[in-house]
Each structure stands twice: as structure tokens, then as C-alpha cells.
């Protein structure tokens, strides 16, 4: 009797311990293969035999960066699985958590076979994990070598989406104020229009710029995207593509532009510290402001039922009073590069390369990227996107305007951006020369200090 009791207790204890372990093991499995399972059972039986690819035994796991396109990626992955029988799992990291998610996922046994970095600085973290894409088919599909992320002789990343940003302009409101987009061809024009609107703000019932919010959800528009302009012009002037010591030659232009945003806004400068990205967009949607600095990725948020139509909107270049303004285009570039995980199994790498090639070259893949994800992709077979701002970017380029390239991937770190953002916020609240010199300090000295740390 005593013995049976003891045995039972032992058994229970062992069971409990085991169930603990079992609990750990299960979870990983389900989260990864979730998306592909359903599709697999439906169609794989019929088609599997026909299509023979090298990576047929492998599987693909894509850790996606853009939450906006999560559903579209999953649908596309399911279709690919249906066609080829190769499992494709797509997992999307929560907004702003890509780096943390990637880090923990890469440490697991079923690591992503495909992930992304945001440019040369982001690559520093993941260089050791990037498969050399030099001989891959997908690299051959690129329209320009400039869209490849290289380190020495190897191709470590491939840009997959080209985006543009500028001043999104509500043409209808602008007409109410008595102007058209053709009146704005330079910083001086923009300043004149904005200040005139501000002077007549009560009569018109709207402001020139939507609030330049410096909350974390919106400050990247200024500490990163707007800051790209002084960077770009300095790089142009000096004929360089990156530097470890920025001079800040065009920071006065940056200041003028920031002044314009702050002084002709929907709210007071000192309130900007707490304004969010949603606040800013809603002001623009509610027709409280004519201009809204943002990019082509905002298209889906601005156009639709109860929102704007294509006829209301135009994206114009951000003129800061530098360079050849008559020939300045939108800011166009990329900070999204695909990388393939070198540490993955050979068949998985091959499966991933096949999947990538299919996405950028097949009719279905390019259509999904253009129509469903609204991407402009730098590949030979790309289908034209229906995104208005993208079309306008092409019109600018066709008219001989030179796009402003994206130089912010060369910014040394998040820390640097935060420093500049902080100083900008303080300056917006109290626009004194002292506060501006803090911005200059964060920009110039912060740059050197952060690069010094990067090269340790």
C-alpha cells in the first residue's frame, strides 16, 4: 500500500515535470508553420509532382518588417505553397520591434531563412548571417546595381521596395487659399504660401502644416526624413556617399524648414512634444492643414471612403532652399533590404532563393507586390503600381527632376537620431539660438561621437 502510494506520487511528479518540458517544445512549432499549413493540405497533392525545383525539400521562413503588408504576404505565401508545395511561413514583427524579434528568432533552431536590414548601419548587426547573393537569380533581376547592399565583393542585401516622401499637399484646400501646386517651386515660394495661409488662418479655417509631432510615433519624420535633406546636400556638395564626420553645412536650411513647420502649424510649438503621428494624419484628413510631410506608404491611409480621392492630393518636393531647386524631385530611395540567412540549411536557402525569384519575376508575384502591397519594386519584371505618389514620383523624374536620394541609412545609430530629435523638440518649444546650437551640437558632434563608437 505504502509502496503504491509512493510510486503514484513519483509518477505524478515525473508527469508534471515532463508536461513542463512538453509545454516549452510545442509552442515554437505552431507559431512558425501556422500560415502554411492550411494551404499545404489543399493543393499540394495535385501540383507537387509537376513542379520540380532544387529547393523542393526546403522551406521558407520570412520574418516580415512591414505590418501594413502582413496579410498580403501571407496570401502570397499560401499561393506559392499551393503551386510548388514548398512551405512558406510569414511572420510579421510588431511595429518597432523588428530588431528584438529578429534577435530572438535567429537564436532558435527554426530560424528565419529570410529577413531584412535597413541599410549599411543595420547590416553591421547581421553581416555574419547574410548569404552572399552575388550568384543568385534574384540579384540578376535588379534594375540597377545601386539597389544592392554590398560589403566588399559580396552582395548581402537586395532592396525590394522603392519609396518616396515629400510634402503631401491637399490641392483643394490650397486652391481655397488661392494657390496651386504650380506656385510652389522653391523654399521661398513655400514660405510665402505657408505664411500667407497662417496670416489668414482664422478666415480660412485651416493651417499650412499639420502638426510636426515629436512623439515617438511621428518624430522619425523630422529627425530622420527631414534630416536627410541637409545630409543629402552636404554629401552632394562634397561628392561623397557617407562620412564619419558630418560638417552640418546645410543646417541653416534645416532650421528654416523646421521653423516653417513649427510656426505655421495647427498647434503651438511647445505642444509638439506630445503630438503623435495619428494626430498629424487626422488633422490632414480633417482638412485642418494643407501640407503633411510623409511618404508613399501613407497612400492607403489617405485615400478611400470618406477620405481623399486622387484628385485632391499631390506630393511635392521638400524644398529647403538648397541646391538646384528648379530641378529637385521627391526624396526617393529605400531602407528595406532582403537578406538570406547563411546559417540555414542548404535546401532551405535554395527554397528561399527560389521563392524570392518567383516573387520578383512571376506575373503573380509582381502583381501582388504592385497592386496588393502598393510597392514599387526595383526589378526588371515589375508591374506598375497604382499608388498615386509613386506615379507622381515617376512624373517628376520624367520631367527631368533629380530625385533626392535616401542618405539616412548612413546615420550612425538610433541614439544619434534620438539626440537630434530631442534637441529639435526643445527648439520647437522655445525657438532660441541657444536651443538651435544644441541641435547643431547633436547633429555634428553627436555624429562623430556615434561613429567613433561604431568603429570600436
Amino acid at each position, binding site marked *: 500500500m505504502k509502496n503504491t502510494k*509512493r510510486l503514484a506520487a513519483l509518477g505524478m*511528479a515525473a508527469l508534471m*515535470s515532463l508536461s513542463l518540458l512538453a509545454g516549452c517544445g510545442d509552442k515554437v512549432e505552431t507559431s512558425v508553420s501556422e500560415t502554411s499549413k492550411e494551404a499545404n493540405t489543399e493543393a499540394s497533392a495535385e501540383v507537387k509532382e509537376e513542379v520540380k525545383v532544387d529547393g523542393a525539400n526546403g522551406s521558407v521562413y520570412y520574418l516580415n518588417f512591414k505590418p501594413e503588408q502582413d496579410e498580403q504576404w501571407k496570401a502570397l505565401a499560401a499561393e506559392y505553397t499551393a503551386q510548388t508545395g514548398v512551405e512558406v511561413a510569414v511572420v510579421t514583427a510588431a511595429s518597432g520591434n523588428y530588431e528584438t524579434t529578429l534577435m530572438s528568432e535567429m537564436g532558435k533552431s527554426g530560424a528565419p531563412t529570410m529577413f531584412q536590414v535597413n541599410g549599411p548601419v543595420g547590416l553591421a548587426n547581421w553581416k*555574419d548571417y547574410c548569404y552572399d547573393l552575388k550568384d543568385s537569380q534574384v540579384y540578376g533581376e535588379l534594375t540597377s546595381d545601386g539597389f544592392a547592399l554590398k560589403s566588399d565583393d559580396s552582395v548581402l542585401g537586395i532592396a525590394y521596395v522603392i519609396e518616396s516622401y515629400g510634402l503631401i499637399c491637399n490641392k483643394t484646400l490650397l486652391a481655397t487659399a488661392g494657390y496651386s501646386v504650380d506656385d510652389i517651386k522653391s523654399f521661398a515660394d513655400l514660405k510665402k504660401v505657408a505664411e500667407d495661409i497662417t496670416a489668414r488662418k482664422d478666415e480660412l479655417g485651416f493651417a499650412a502644416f499639420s502638426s510636426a509631432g515629436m512623439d515617438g510615433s511621428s518624430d522619425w519624420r523630422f529627425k530622420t526624413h527631414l534630416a536627410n535633406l541637409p545630409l543629402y546636400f552636404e554629401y552632394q556638395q562634397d561628392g561623397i556617399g557617407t562620412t564619419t564626420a558630418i560638417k552640418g553645412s546645410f543646417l541653416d536650411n534645416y532650421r528654416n524648414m523646421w521653423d516653417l513647420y513649427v510656426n505655421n502649424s495647427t498647434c503651438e510649438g511647445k505642444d509638439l512634444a506630445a503630438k503623435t503621428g495619428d494626430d498629424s494624419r487626422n488633422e490632414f484628413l480633417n482638412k485642418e492643414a494643407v501640407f503633411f510631410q510623409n511618404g508613399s506608404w501613407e497612400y492607403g491611409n489617405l485615400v478611400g471612403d470618406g477620405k481623399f480621392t486622387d484628385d485632391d492630393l499631390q506630393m511635392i518636393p521638400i524644398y529647403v532652399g538648397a541646391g538646384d531647386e528648379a530641378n529637385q524631385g521627391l526624396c526617393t530611395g529605400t531602407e528595406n533590404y532582403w537578406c538570406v540567412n547563411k546559417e540555414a540549411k542548404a535546401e532551405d536557402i535554395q527554397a528561399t532563393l527560389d521563392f524570392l525569384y518567383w516573387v520578383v519575376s512571376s506575373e503573380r508575384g509582381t502583381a501582388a507586390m504592385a497592386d496588393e502591397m502598393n510597392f514599387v519594386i526595383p526589378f526588371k519584371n515589375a508591374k506598375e503600381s497604382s499608388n498615386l505618389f509613386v506615379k507622381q514620383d515617376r512624373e517628376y523624374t520624367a520631367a527631368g527632376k533629380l530625385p533626392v536620394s535616401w542618405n539616412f541609412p548612413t546615420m550612425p545609430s538610433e*541614439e544619434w537620431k534620438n*539626440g537630434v530629435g*530631442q534637441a529639435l523638440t526643445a527648439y520647437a518649444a522655445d525657438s532660441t539660438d541657444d536651443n538651435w546650437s544644441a541641435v547643431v551640437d547633436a547633429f555634428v558632434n553627436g555624429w562623430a561621437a*556615434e561613429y567613433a563608437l561604431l568603429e*570600436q
Partner: protein
Amino acid sequence: MEKALKKSAPIFVLPTLVAFIIGFIIPFGQGLYLSFCKFTTVSNAKWVGIGNYKYAFSDPSFGRSFIFTVMFAVVSIVLINLFAFTLAVLLTQNLKGTNIFRTVFFMPNLIGGIVLGYIWQILINCLLTIIKEPLLALNSKAGYWGLIILMCWQQIGYMMIIYIAGLQNVPDSLIEAASIDGATKWQTLFKIKIPMVMSSITVCVFLTLTNSFKLFDQNLALTGGDPNHSTEMMALNIYQTFYARSGNQWKGYGQAKAVIFCVLVIFISLFQLKATRSKEVQQ
């Protein structure tokens, strides 16, 4: 009976022990190892020796965050325990509706730190706008006091419950004897009740101390360390070291800071336990 218990103890301990080893001992050991390494993911680390610790100790931002954390901890421990104890005394007086009040005071503790942080951020920013002061992102003083108010609001209820339990355990005979001897209310409080609830005080001070040192969610949500890292506490500093810069050396630096932080918290709490325990009395 006791002998039988001793014999079968290992069996009952086993499940928890396994969980403890898997969930705590192994990750802790791995974390310790990683603090001497350069790594991107935990599975491929390269040994670099004590370089990470050298950096952690020479990083001025780490020292600043330590000072800020201590300043925060001292004030919040005092305020939280003072208010919690006062409320507990008031709510053990057999007044009407004490149960409702206990529930109400306990409720903030049920809301998560991030949510609380953002809610208080909106409230405090509103207030700052009205009194025409710089908003939280630019105002380290408001950030500091905001954190303290937030933590008080969240923790007082919880500590109050522990104090109430302690106060209810004080034997009535002692209180009665004191009143027969002619002790005033204040004398009863200081000479009888406080010494008798010393064990609750130990627990509460321990909890508030470790909570204040380890504070992360509320810090991240309320101020995010703004302006210029001046309201950054140690946990947030470690997080920023880990993620705000690229290059795999930063992971090791962050890890070394985390180990230092852990040792520091253990050391301080042990010291505090010893100090308050020595004042406890046997019933």
C-alpha cells in the same frame, strides 16, 4: 510524520525544481556567460573576457542612471510605505465601508505598467499644458515626480493589503493591556503596533525596493528616458545599450550591465533584509 515528510520531500520538490532550473538557473548561467562575450544571437557567442565590464563601468550614462534610480527609489520607498501604512491603520478602525475602500485602493495594481505609463503621460502632459510648463519630453523634473506619483498610485494599494494583514494579526490582548495601562492612541501605535508588524514592514520595504530598482515598463512608457536620458533608470539604460546602436559589441555591453545590475539589486536587498529583520520581535 516529520521523517516521512523528509523522505518524500524530493518527490514533491522535483516539478518546481525542474521548472526553476529550466526557467531560471540555466538562463541565468547563460546570461552570465554571455556577459563575457560578443554576440548577435545567444547561440553564437565569442568569448572576449572582461572587456564588456570595463566598458560598463566606464560608461557615464550607466552611472547617471544609477544615481537617478537611487534618487527615485529612496523617495518612492518612503512615500509608498508611509501612505500604505497610514491607509492600513485607517482602514482597520472598524469604520463603515472599509471593504469598498480597500478594493478601490487595490485596483490600480491590476493595470499593467505600460498602460498606466501612457495614461499618466496624457494626464501629466495635460496638466503641464494648463500650467504652461514644458511637457514631459522636455522636463526632467516633471518626469521624476511623474514617475513617483505613478508608482505611488500603483503600489500603495498592494502594500496596504500586506499592512492590513499584519495589523489584524496584532493580538487584541496586547492592545487591551496597553489601554488598561493608560497608553494613548499614539503610544499604542508606536510602542505596540509598529513593532508587532515589523515583519510586514520588512516584506513591504523589500518589495518596494526591488520594484523601484527594477522599474522598466512605467519608465519606458511615461518618459522613455527623455529629455536626454535624464530620466532613464538602470533597466531602461540596459535596454537602450542593447538596442539603440548597431554592432554586436553592444549586446555584450548590455549583458555586462545587466549582470552588474543584478548583483547590485541582490546586494542592496540583502542588506535591507538584514537591517529590518533585526528589528522584528517575536510574538
